[in-house]
């Protein structure tokens, strides 16, 4: 071998060995690293390597914490057991044992006696059972024989068997007696034993119960504490077998996710880190108790993430909550990648941009929030006593902290990145869009109301804002039945679903049931020329906020993409104003019949309740809810409620006294769909208020002068728009002849169709000729009638067109240009989506549909040159904040004026923007299966309809409904003069329980103020509701208050004695001292009561029988008035012997019933006149004047 020539190798074998060895090490090392990465959640800085198993650290942290909790709990259980007398019981047990040992002989004897008795009892029982079976057999033999022998008892066989059965029966009876005796004896010996030993047995039992609790906790603790468990079962590789540190997941089968077009259940692994998510905080009592006993308690809500528990556990996560984690999981609401187990890839989204101080926690090597200053430290940070020197505090955003702590980076390709806490309520929308007053969804609620009022939905279609519930058709359901089931108008359902007249449903089909219909948010401009002047209109268009700070009207000029062209803006604004005035109707408003008194008008505005919806000269944005209303609403609600109507400061600059007078007398004559109700003002009242309001001028607006609209610019822009359809040369010529382009705006809606379909007139003329010809041939009268009708129609259209032509021909040259340009600009900005404008009845809104915007991929959004984070929500925030900013740097270069962005800028605070972003980001393409949808029951459906109505009409501006609202109370209305509470918390009063539905219906339709509480200045307005709308409210109050509906007249005890007792009580309790009865109170006719005494009065009881429900009076109101209505002046009487021992035997319940029944006869023909029981009255119906 040695002699053979060495093969010439490119390599050297020994060196190769070295190489092998080295690569072996490298492989080994990488294997170790692989295992390390897979096993560990640590960070190896020298390799810049993060372990993939961060969650293990958190589980470790969790178990450490949980062990501490167990130890604390065990200690607490021990102390509690001792408090419950464990030690004493143990002492007692010992003592009893000692006593018993002295009586050993007796104990043995007793035990022997029990044993003996038991043996005897057993024996006799056994014998009894056997003989009884025997007897039963004999009996049946006898019956068989009897049957065999045709019921003849004389046959020997029968007689014999009967004898036998009888004999056996006697024997059994005897045995039964013996058995009973034996049973009794056994019991007696046992009792004897119990007398001696019972105490001991009971003690043992109780000790065991207390002891077990402690043992359970200690055992669990030891399990976790064992180093064997911790060290071995969680070791690498073998951990999969039975580690305590393990992969955990919730398969939320009720909610799915779509992955690559396939529908799969969500598999949420969030709980691997968020292990404390369902841990409950100690109750305040428990906390106090433990503080007293110096036992620590873990407050899960104060743990650092991810160990912290979920807030609002009564709503989310908790087993008894409506969204238990076990069936809902996490990602259904929070989004994020359900199966992922690392921080970054699961889609965590950082919160707001503001920087906050952080410090590095030495033990965990994580950055944690630095405690602020000594003063505002809360208890837990104080307890930790972290020493903070100024030097190691770093100001960072949450994003930066995450990058440091978790190596976080944005997951661009996640379609559903986690929703940050700020916007998480967006998720509620996909299931709950039909509902309002969502607990835990306050931001969403505010946002939706805001979108409704701002009118975002009227330019941008938002299916979710249409508010319907989706019904999944089941077998046997038809369309008619469905409409009846929900009690909705079939036509509304047809319209919402686009159904034809004849509807046939298929099983599983989705039918949307409308809950409400939204009204165009802006006022009608059909008659605008009679309301205001062109000058004001121009200033208003130029900058609405300058005139009215809380307006919902957006600004269109002077923004990012047109602030640089003031002259052009002036031309546009002028053209629109000219257009609106040119096409406006011009009804005349005469001078009011009486002279108004501004001073009194001011007083009325403060008293009548106007301030529940309006504000005069208050800066609502700075307002904090007054303490007296804090329990009912938040700041936002307060601001919202009082922004239902416009801010009235300066209204005189816009409208004159005559118009205001007519408006106040009947708002609907000017604007049929206005939300402003009719206050039923008298002529003098209306004149006073109108005079006051007309005197409120906005000096700044009055003095402002706008730049003039320059003629040459008007021409330039007119040509620009003409050029859209014409070549430049022709456009230049056309500007001198615009008549045919603007005629159509001066005809009515019907005639306009002939302009939209220019061939229509010719077509109809041809048709007419054909008809005429047909008639000449057939002499068919029907054809003749048709022809004549068509001829008349054509004639009419021609007349209207001719009139329009004349109007236009009579116009100034400049006006024509303005009308033309104005019409184009109204099209461009889409003004008609919010306002009624002649000529735009059928125009389509200009905004993009936003129904699925929340799922829009970020790369489809144009960020322009704006330097913001490239995220869906940051884009939306920017859009709302500065809608035209995405044009920045592009004007004139890449964009023609007509191509510029056109969305208006709304005057929104950051908080409002967040509310809107919450809603819009919740409008996603997520589809719900029938199993997942939140289908409302018919009762819930009716309640939601009512809730939306209450909000839309702003009932809660004045009243408190469902413990919300009552804003008017904070506007200087005295205690006792507020509008009545309609429904408080669930235990407080409910209008549906208090009043009869029929009365409520009548009252809502046509309020009769001055009847029940004549002292009130606030006036319930007439909303002009249809029967259907009024019924929605009546049903809502009944169902929401869980009152009996439909209502049944109560059974009133009409016996004279009963009513006489009632009357006696009524007089003794001096009810009539405050309550109005028969038009009198305080012993005087109402008219004679001085103004300052009015607030002392209490409701008119002569109307009680028409208004109040007996059940409520008897079971709630008289029993504890304050529980029903906090602060009420109605006292609680101590019915029974305390106030009237001699009436109805001092029985409190009977007294209440008698009093109520008496009150319910007041004002009816059943009213008792005398206390002395009269002779039996003529047979009377059982209730007073039952309502139909």
């Amino acid at each position, binding site marked *: 071998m040695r002699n053979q020539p060495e093969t010439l190798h490119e390599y050297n074998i020994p060196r190769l060995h070295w190489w092998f060895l080295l690569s072996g090490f490298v492989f080994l090392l990488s294997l170790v690293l692989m295992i390390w990465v897979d096993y560990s959640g640590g960070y190896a800085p020298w390799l810049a390597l993060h372990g993939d198993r961060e969650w293990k650290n958190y589980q470790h942290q969790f178990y450490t914490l949980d062990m501490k909790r167990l130890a604390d709990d065990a200690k607490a259980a021990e102390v509690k057991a001792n408090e419950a007398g464990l030690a004493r019981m143990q002492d007692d047990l010992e003592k009893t044992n000692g006593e018993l040992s002295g009586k050993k002989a007796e104990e043995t004897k007793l035990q022997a006696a029990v044993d003996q008795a038991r043996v005897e009892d057993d024996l006799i029982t056994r014998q009894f059972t056997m003989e009884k079976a025997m007897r039963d057999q004999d009996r049946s033999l006898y019956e068989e024989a009897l049957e065999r022998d045709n019921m003849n008892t004389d046959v020997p066989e029968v007689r014999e068997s009967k004898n036998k059965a009888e004999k056996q029966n006697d024997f059994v009876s005897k045995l039964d007696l013996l058995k009973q005796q034996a049973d009794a004896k056994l019991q007696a010996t046992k009792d004897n034993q119990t007398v001696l030993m019972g105490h001991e047995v009971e003690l043992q039992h109780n000790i065991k119960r207390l002891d077990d609790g402690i043992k359970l906790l200690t055992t669990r603790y030891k399990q976790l504490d064992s180093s064997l468990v911790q060290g071995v079962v969680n070791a690498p590789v073998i951990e999969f077998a039975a580690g305590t540190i393990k992969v955990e997941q919730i398969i939320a089968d009720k909610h799915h996710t779509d992955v690559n077009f396939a529908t799969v259940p969500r598999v949420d692994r969030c709980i691997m880190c968020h292990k404390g998510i369902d841990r409950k905080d100690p109750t305040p009592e428990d906390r106090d108790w433990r503080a007293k006993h110096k036992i620590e308690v873990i407050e899960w809500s104060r743990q650092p993430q991810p160990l912290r528990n979920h807030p609002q556990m009564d709503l989310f996560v908790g087993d008894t909550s409506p969204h238990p984690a076990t069936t809902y999981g996490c990602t259904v609401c929070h989004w994020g990648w359900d199966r992922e187990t690392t921080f970054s890839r699961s889609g965590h989204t950082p919160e707001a941009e503001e920087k906050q101080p952080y410090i590095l926690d030495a033990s965990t090597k994580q950055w944690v929030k630095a405690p602020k200053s000594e003063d505002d430290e809360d208890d837990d940070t104080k307890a930790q006593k972290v020493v903070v020197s100024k030097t190691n505090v770093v100001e960072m955003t949450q994003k930066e902290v995450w990058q440091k702590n978790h190596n976080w980076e944005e997951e661009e390709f996640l379609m559903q990145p986690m929703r940050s806490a700020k916007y998480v309520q967006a998720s509620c929308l996909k299931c709950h869009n039909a509902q309002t007053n969502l607990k835990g969804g306050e931001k969403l609620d505010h946002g939706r109301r805001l979108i409704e009022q701002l009118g975002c939905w009227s330019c941008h279609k938002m299916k979710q804002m249409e508010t319907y519930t989706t019904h999944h058709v089941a077998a046997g359901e038809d369309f008619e039945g469905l409409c009846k089931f929900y009690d909705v108008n079939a036509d509304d359902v047809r319209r919402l679903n686009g159904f034809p007249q004849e509807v046939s449903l298929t099983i599983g089909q989705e039918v949307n049931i409308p809950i409400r219909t939204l009204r165009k948010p802006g006022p009608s401009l059909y008659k605008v020329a009679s309301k205001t002047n062109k000058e004001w209109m121009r200033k208003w268009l130029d900058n609405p906020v300058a005139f009215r700070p809380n307006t919902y009207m957006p600004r269109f000029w002077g923004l990012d993409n047109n602030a640089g062209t003031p002259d052009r803006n002036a031309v546009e604004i002028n053209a629109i104003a000219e257009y609106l005035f040119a096409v406006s109707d011009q009804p005349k408003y005469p001078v009011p019949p009486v002279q108004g008194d501004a001073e009194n008008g001011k007083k009325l505005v403060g008293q009548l309740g106007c301030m529940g919806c309006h504000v005069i000269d208050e800066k609502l944005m700075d307002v904090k809810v007054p303490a007296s209303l804090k329990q009912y609403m938040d700041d936002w609600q307060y601001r919202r409620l009082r922004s239902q109507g416009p801010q009235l400061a300066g209204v005189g600059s816009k409208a004159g006294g005559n118009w205001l007078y007519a408006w106040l007398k009947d708002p609907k004559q000017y604007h049929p769909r206005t939300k402003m109700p009719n206050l039923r003002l008298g002529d003098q009242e209306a004149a006073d208020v109108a005079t006051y309001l007309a005197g409120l001028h906005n000096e700044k607006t009055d003095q402002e002068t706008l730049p003039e609209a320059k003629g040459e610019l008007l021409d330039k822009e007119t040509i620009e728009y003409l050029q859209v359809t014409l070549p430049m040369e022709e456009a230049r010529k056309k500007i001198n002849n615009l008549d045919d382009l603007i005629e159509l705006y001066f005809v009515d809606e019907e005639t306009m169709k002939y302009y939209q379909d220019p061939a229509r007139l010719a077509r109809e003329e041809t048709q007419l000729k054909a008809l005429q010809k047909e008639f000449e041939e057939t002499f068919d009268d029907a054809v003749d009638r048709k022809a004549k009708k068509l001829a008349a129609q054509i004639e009419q259209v021609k007349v209207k067109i001719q009139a329009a032509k004349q109007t236009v021909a009579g116009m100034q040259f400049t006006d024509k240009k303005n009308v033309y340009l104005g019409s184009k600009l109204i099209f461009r900005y889409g003004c008609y989506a919010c306002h009624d404008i002649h000529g735009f009845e059928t125009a389509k809104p200009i905004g993009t549909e936003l129904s699925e915007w929340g799922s829009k991929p970020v790369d489809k959004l144009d960020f322009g040159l704006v330097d913001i984070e490239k995220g869906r929500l940051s884009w939306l925030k920017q859009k709302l904040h500065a809608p035209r900013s995405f044009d920045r740097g592009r004007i004139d270069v890449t964009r023609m004026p007509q191509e510029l962005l056109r969305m208006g800028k709304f005057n929104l605070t950051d908080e409002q923007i967040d509310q809107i972003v919450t809603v819009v980001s919740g409008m996603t393409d997520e589809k719900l299966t029938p199993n997942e949808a939140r289908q409302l029951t018919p009762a819930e459906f009716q309640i939601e309809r009512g809730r939306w109505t209450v909000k839309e009409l702003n009932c809660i501006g004045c009243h408190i409904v469902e413990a919300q609202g009552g804003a008017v109370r904070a506007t200087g209305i005295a205690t006792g003069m507020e509008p009545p509470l309609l429904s408080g918390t669930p235990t407080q009063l409910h209008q549906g329980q208090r009043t009869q539905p029929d009365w409520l219906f009548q009252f809502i339709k046509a309020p009769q103020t001055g009847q029940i509480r004549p002292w009130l200045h606030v006036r319930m307005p007439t909303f002009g509701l249809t029967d259907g709308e009024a019924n929605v409210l009546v049903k809502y109050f009944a169902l929401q208050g869980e009152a009996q509906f439909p209502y049944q007249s109560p059974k009133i005890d009409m016996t004279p004695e009963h009513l006489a007792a009632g009357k006696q009580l009524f007089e003794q309790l*001096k009810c009539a001292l405050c309550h109005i009865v028969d038009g009198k109170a305080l012993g005087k006719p109402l008219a004679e009561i001085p103004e300052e005494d009015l607030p002392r009065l209490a409701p008119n009881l002569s109307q009680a029988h028409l208004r109040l429900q007996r059940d409520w009076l008897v079971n709630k109101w008289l029993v504890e*008035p304050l529980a029903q209505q906090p602060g009420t002046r109605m006292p609680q009487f101590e019915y029974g012997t305390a106030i009237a021992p001699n009436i109805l035997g001092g029985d409190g319940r009977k007294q209440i019933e008698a009093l109520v029944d008496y009150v319910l006869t007041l004002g009816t023909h059943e009213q008792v006149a005398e206390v002395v029981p009269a002779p039996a009255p003529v047979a009377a119906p059982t209730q007073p004047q039952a309502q139909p």
Partner: protein
Amino acid sequence: MKLSKLLMVVVVSVLVTTVSHAADSASVSGKITFDGKPPKQKKIPTDADPKCAEMHADSPLLNEEVVVNADGTLKNVFVYVKSGLEGKTYDTPKTPVELTQTGCHYVPHVFGMMVKQPLEIINSDDTLHNIHAMPAKSKEFNVGQPNKDMKTVRTFAEPEIMVHFKCDVHPWMSAYVGVMTNPFYSVSGDDGAFSLKGLPAGEYQVAAWHEKYGEQVQKIKVGDGEAKTLDFKFSKPAE
């Protein structure tokens, strides 16, 4: 007069409770004076309830919002230890405090009691009164007393300065109670004097509360057995 008798009851009950802390023997006393021209007590028209009018046919009922004594001292000022006793607990007296409705007004007009101490409300008139207490912290109550000599007992669960009582039948009726966790309080009477006895040595904030003129607070330090004086001066706020 009944009023002084009732004040006696209050004072005595204060004394009784303080005796139990025999070791604590410091005291603070003084006078409340009124600076300026004393406002006149207005007559209250009571004819809204004939029963009330009858009782005041000869002596009209006077508004008690501000009562300046002849010597220029101010009546109905509630003086109490506002702070300095933290961590100390005092037993709740079992003897009830009385509030009487007589001649369609409350007697006493201002008084003090301890948390959970029984408050006995008596109607001495032959008309309906309702006693409507409007605490912010404890439970609100509103009890009707239609009969003469009716008694109702209530308590307050939480301390509060002050709880207002009103009668919804007779809107002029008004009274205030200071609900305390310690027994160191006193109401200035016809001589404008108050005294807080049996205090442990220490540093305190003593407050004087008046329904119209608000609250004043002064700091004071007392040693064991020391008796110090402290005066308060109220005046009409500038308008």
